[in-house]
């Protein structure tokens, strides 16, 4: 299901988002796109070029970006509202909570520049807690694509789904992992992208590529890993997570987000109630980010295959 390591092509999920929007815009005229003066960065500018009559710049006013989107949805439109993750989930949290999720309106909050990989702009711009915030809201669906192919499928799935969706994308170009003809994303489903009996690595976003790298490295050390891409953070595919834990008896999670409240927490919740097995969470360790080169920052904050390998070795040691 995954492409071989050799021919790695890198595309930012935000770039895939812009292209997906243009495609969908042609198929469904109910789709409208709103941005808050970041359309060149979020790539909604692509949509604006083709469908300017359905693109609305709301200016630097994120609360109103969400409020207008709610109103548009209440009259039957399918608004995609885009800005950076921090300004949507952060600045407009309560608009998302009360004007979108509470009335279960059909708004797609499609954000980019999530996580440490924002890079040079620094900590103020690196949302590391947005998934925790969004996951806690009733009626909210939370999706985290791992690559360009999955982004395309997720944007389509979000448009087809009736209700609020938060889609978290990144700035940094990341490896294309999947083949569109073979890979299939569905809301509420996790994808097992590698099978192995010794440990389960559950990841999403750009950490899926790192999980696959880690699995290769672990294989050389004689450890066979199951790798689960958990792009649907909410609803969470509890069955797949429980089965992976049953099969392997040890779990490592990996995410470009705080280990508080994101994928690691969600998996811990499921495991502790159903099948308590040794667990390690790879992620941002309750700290803000900083300015720097994205790749260097990912290393500095422990968001690497190497860190996953270390966690796997620890968790396997704990197995009974």
């Amino acid at each position: 299901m995954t492409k071989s390591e050799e021919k790695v092509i890198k595309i930012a999920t935000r770039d895939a988002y812009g292209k997906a929007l243009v495609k969908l815009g042609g198929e469904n005229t109910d789709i409208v796109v709103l941005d808050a003066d970041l359309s060149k960065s979020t790539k909604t500018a692509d949509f604006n070029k083709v469908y300017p009559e359905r693109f609305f710049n709301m200016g630097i006013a994120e609360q109103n970006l969400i409020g207008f989107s709610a109103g548009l949805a209440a009259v039957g439109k399918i608004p995609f509202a885009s800005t950076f993750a921090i300004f949507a989930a952060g600045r407009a949290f309560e608009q998302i909570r009360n004007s979108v999720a509470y009335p279960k309106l059909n708004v797609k909050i499609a954000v980019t520049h999530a996580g440490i990989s924002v890079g040079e702009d620094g900590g103020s711009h690196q949302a590391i807690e947005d998934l925790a915030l969004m996951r806690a809201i009733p009626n909210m669906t939370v999706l985290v694509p791992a690559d360009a192919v999955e982004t395309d499928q997720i944007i389509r799935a979000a448009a087809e789904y009736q209700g609020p969706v938060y889609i978290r994308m990144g700035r940094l170009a990341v490896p294309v992992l999947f083949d569109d003809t073979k890979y299939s994303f569905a809301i509420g489903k996790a994808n097992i992208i590698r099978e192995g009996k010794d440990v389960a690595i559950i990841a999403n976003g750009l950490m899926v590529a790192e999980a696959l790298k880690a699995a290769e490295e672990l294989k050389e050390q004689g450890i066979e890993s199951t790798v689960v891409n958990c792009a649907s953070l909410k609803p969470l595919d509890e069955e797949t997570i429980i089965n992976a834990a049953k099969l392997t008896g040890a779990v490592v999670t990996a995410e470009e987000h705080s280990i508080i409240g994101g994928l690691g927490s969600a998996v811990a919740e499921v495991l502790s109630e159903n099948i308590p097995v040794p667990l390690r969470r790879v992620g941002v360790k309750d700290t803000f980010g900083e300015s720097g080169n994205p790749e260097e920052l990912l290393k500095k904050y422990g968001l690497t295959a190497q860190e996953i390998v270390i966690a796997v070795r620890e968790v396997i040691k704990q197995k009974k």
Partner: protein
Amino acid sequence: MTEIKEMARKIRMDIIEMLTMAKSGHPGGSLSAADIMAVLFFDEMRLDPANKDWSERDRFVLSKGHAAPVYYAALANKGFFPREELLKLRKTGHFLQGHPDMRKVPGVDMSTGSLGHGISAAGGMALAGKIDKKSFRVYSLLGDGEMAEGLVWEAAMAASHYKLDNLVAILDYNGLQIDGACEEVMKSSPLDDKWRAFGWNVLEIDGHDLKEIKEALEKAKNFKGKPTIIIAKTIKGKGVSFMENQAGWHGNAPSSEQAELALAELKGGELG
């Protein structure tokens, strides 16, 4: 107009009755808006209670969502649900939530309660109308304390930027909010100049004069290229002498004795 005057009286009496039964809720800002709501729902807006999801209907968003009692009374009297239901406001398991809920209350177009949100959503609805070149209009009622919310001004800016002349905001200008006079809590005046500066058509009226309300709504309809705000001077608690102009009656329900007095006044009073 006499019919609408009677309707405003009926709405006020319903407000008192439902709040008394609920033992909590917001009488002051509900009573101040009763005349505006009576004109909107019984003269101005195109609605069909038998077909509540009619796509061409005019939309209403109660941005000052705490005035849910005046909204529910208007909806019930309009026929969206039986009037008896009003007496179960805020009760566990009943559909009449403390603040308007579009998923639970028939006729409610947008869930509100968090101040500032309503006018923003109303802007989005008006924009949707423009995209599809539909003829429905969008009305939103705001409070003067609510004017302190930044989101109100974000929405005001966007509504004029997108020339949403199908949007009408009505400001229930009663001078009071929870902690006292708006001018003391957070001065927002001069509001006419502010809204004008934000690119709106501004009308100022007596919010208890049914004729003035009707005429202002008519003027708004004929004004093209800008959204309109009707700044309606009102009296908080209007119609119940001991509630009038009292900040303390913002969010307290009357006792049954107080309700009796209030209802007697409303029954005999010359309103509108």
